[in-house]
């Protein structure tokens, strides 16, 4: 079954690609981390906002964010995280070098996390970003000085 699926994928992966997205791994999307937005080290085990966030996410939220990813990145995230293919297998299926698979995966995951973050804010799952609350604190501190 898996072999049939892989060979089917290989047959379909022959068309040349038209890439409209930059694959530069230093892009802000790659650097985006949900964990960094949510983690609050000063809680010292009294709470775990990042796990609470994941518990609030619904299957629909995840699949919607996945569907919204640009195709180029969606396919590697799906093949890796949903189908469990290795980087080497994905490189063969997509006819690209392993390094390209690696960078697309990093970018795709970054974009996915960013989409989940945006959705969570719109749906009211998060009131305020930790980073923005830190900025407010800094502003308040500077105003008082």
């Amino acid at each position: 079954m898996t072999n049939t699926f892989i060979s089917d994928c290989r047959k379909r992966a022959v068309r040349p690609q038209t890439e409209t997205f930059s694959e530069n791994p230093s892009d802000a999307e790659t650097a985006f981390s949900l964990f960094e937005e949510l983690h609050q080290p000063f809680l010292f085990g009294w709470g775990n906002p990042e796990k609470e966030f994941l518990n609030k996410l619904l299957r629909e939220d995840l699949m919607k964010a996945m569907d919204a990813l640009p195709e180029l990145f969606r396919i590697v995230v799906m093949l890796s995280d949903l189908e469990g293919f290795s980087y080497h297998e994905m490189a063969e299926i997509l006819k690209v070098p392993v390094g390209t698979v690696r960078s697309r995966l990093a970018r795709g995951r970054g974009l996915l996390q960013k989409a989940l973050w945006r959705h969570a804010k719109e749906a009211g799952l998060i009131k305020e970003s930790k980073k923005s609350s830190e900025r407010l604190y800094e502003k308040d501190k500077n105003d008082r000085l």
Partner: protein
Amino acid sequence: MKKIKTIGCEEALKHLLTYLDRELGPVKRREVEHHIEICRTCFSRAEFEKLLKTQIREAGRETAGAEFENKIKTLLGRF
């Protein structure tokens, strides 16, 4: 046995997702594992990324099998 090199957070995070994908070579894997054992924040980060990965996989599994496979095939057909 060769001593494990101690790496910092930046280096560990650079390789974290590859580590979670089980795609790191043995030396780098041991370095990342060692860092995660001694750094609370990176340990939490690894746990978070692992949990998110699991949730994505489960969400995909719950999506009707044939419908999901068609989705992947359609996508691959465009490449």
